[in-house]
């Protein structure tokens, strides 16, 4: 019944415009839409404004490739496999990247506000920290809070007090996150666009609902009538989804609950090689630009590696891959 939302990775990435404010599914190095991220680099997207609760390997790749102008987040790194976001750090220092620091709760509340259609939400988190220091308002410092971009709030925070219960202490209002596009990698999507996520859902629901345009990449596109047999297990109704793409392993090297493990070795290799721009460029040449499609990328990773990462169907993670130091 529904219109056909199926797209190729190439077509889906064409829905993203230079200058767009973008957010993603997942958490740090888990369930990130990597197939799309690689194609964004290939299509040389520019001046993106990333807004995320936290960032990770996907953000580092987009930043290293020069696609990103602004990063609003609470964190960027690779967990065990790379302590900091070295590309973000380098581009920040060179002045190519604006980094706006919020805390984790601030960011999730910003997305919740966006998802619920209100301009802000209140919180008590992170009082007394330099995150609230008005000198450290990076978008303001760069003159981007003048209201000319309707998605960039005119202030970083507002401070209020509670008139209802007589509580003492400041309440912080954080502005809504209102991205143009959310790119989500999930386990399953129905043919009409109904989204099912297995395992921890991170901030996927809020990220998707806050965005105007939603691209969903799934390990599997499944019959809509099957995914609707248990609607309580579904996260997002079809009418919020604009494009669907089927791409098995599409979150590699990040992990995907029930499907495959984080490829820590791959991420550690990325981290160690991309601390310099030259290192990044060489890595991107090898793993993105010389590779024409995600299928080719998977071929380059190799079946043996992928199969080791494949999740055990009971545990929902790989019991065969060697982790540890």
């Amino acid at each position, binding site marked *: 019944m529904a219109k056909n939302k199926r797209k190729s990775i190439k077509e889906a990435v064409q829905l993203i415009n230079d200058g767009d404010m973008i957010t993603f599914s997942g*958490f*740090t190095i*888990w*369930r990130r839409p990597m197939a799309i991220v690689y194609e964004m680099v290939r299509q040389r997207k520019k001046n993106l404004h990333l807004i995320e*609760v*936290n960032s990770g390997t996907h953000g580092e790749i987009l930043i290293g490739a020069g696609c990103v102008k602004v990063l609003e*987040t*609470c*964190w960027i*790194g690779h*967990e*065990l496999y790379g302590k*900091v*976001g070295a590309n*973000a*750090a380098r581009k*920040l*220092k060179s*002045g190519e990247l604006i*980094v706006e620091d*919020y*805390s*984790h*709760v601030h960011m*999730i509340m910003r997305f*919740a506000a966006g998802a619920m259609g209100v301009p802000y939400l209140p919180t*008590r*988190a*992170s*009082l*007394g*920290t*330099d*995150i*609230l*220091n*008005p*000198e450290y308002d990076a978008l303001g410092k760069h003159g981007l809070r003048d209201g000319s971009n309707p998605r960039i709030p005119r202030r970083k925070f507002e*401070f209020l007090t509670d008139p209802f219960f*007589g*509580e*003492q*202490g*400041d309440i912080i209002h954080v502005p809504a996150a209102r991205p143009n596009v959310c790119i989500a990698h999930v386990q399953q999507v129905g043919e009409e666009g109904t989204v099912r996520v297995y395992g*921890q*859902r*991170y*901030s*996927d*629901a809020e990220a998707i609902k806050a965005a105007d345009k939603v691209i969903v990449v799934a390990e599997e596109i499944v019959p809509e009538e099957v995914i609707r047999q248990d609607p309580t297990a579904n996260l997002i109704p079809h009418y919020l989804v604009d494009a669907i793409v089927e791409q098995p392993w599409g979150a590699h090297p990040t992990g995907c*609950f*029930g499907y495959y493990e984080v490829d820590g070795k791959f991420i550690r290799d990325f981290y160690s090689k991309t601390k310099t721009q030259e290192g990044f460029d060489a890595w991107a040449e090898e793993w993105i630009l010389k590779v024409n499609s995600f299928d080719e990328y998977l071929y380059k990773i190799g079946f043996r590696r992928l199969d080791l990462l494949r*999740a055990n169907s009971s*545990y*929902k*993670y790989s*019991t065969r891959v060697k*982790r*540890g*130091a």
Partner: protein
Amino acid sequence: MRNNHSPAQPGEYKLIELLAVASAREIQDGEVVFAGTGLPMLAVTLAQKTSAPRASIIYEAGSMDGRPAHLPSSVGDARCEYRASVSSGLLDVFGQLQRGVVDLAFLGGAEIDKYGNVNTTVIGGDYYNPAVRLTGSGGNPDINSLAKRTVFIMVQEKRRFKEQVDYVTSPGWRVKKWPGGEWVTRQEAFGSVFRGGPVAVITSMAVFRFDEETGEMYLDTVHPGVTVEDVKNNVGFDLDVSRCRGETSPPTYHELYLLRNVIDPEGLFLGS
């Protein structure tokens, strides 16, 4: 007589094992603990298998009281959710945190000052052009703001224990009240929602605690083989060592057995 519950001798355990055990001892039975990746996971799991079987653990990515069959490598890991009470997402767990459900949190940091202010954002230079840009806050300041007690686990180095941190990522006992920036006590900053704050810093050399009146850090115990002088040489501010109670209790053989053979047999955090 030496038995499984006897303390191990120096040389029989690694530093990280000592830290895990010291951290585990901060947990009381039945508590709800908010923990990040790494050492805190070892500590909470150890506590659940020894003194605090009814402790529950919340991981930032959305799992509540998981009972992992294999040690998770990060809070987003599928392993966190194994046999969890609930697995959902960030808004749920941080909402619970803000609601006041969390008793104790374990956090890390790159720098700390004597009031327990922690930095994980920028070191050196200017905020906009730092010598070192770190990960940013993550959930550190939120969890530290909203839990009843916080324990920091850190590497002990003079450059990390500073008179004043370069950026207050996570609030200690004296903080700045924004937007003005005047220094106030944590109690003043948080007002009615003040619930507590940092109670201990467990480092590679010692355990520190905070004076209830002044909010200043003092030396509580030194790890076996470390002297008070060693600690002072690795702290960048004037440290109160007058209340040092002696040595940090070492792991027992039973605790070491659990850590090595049951909790982290892959050597994910303990190493090989």
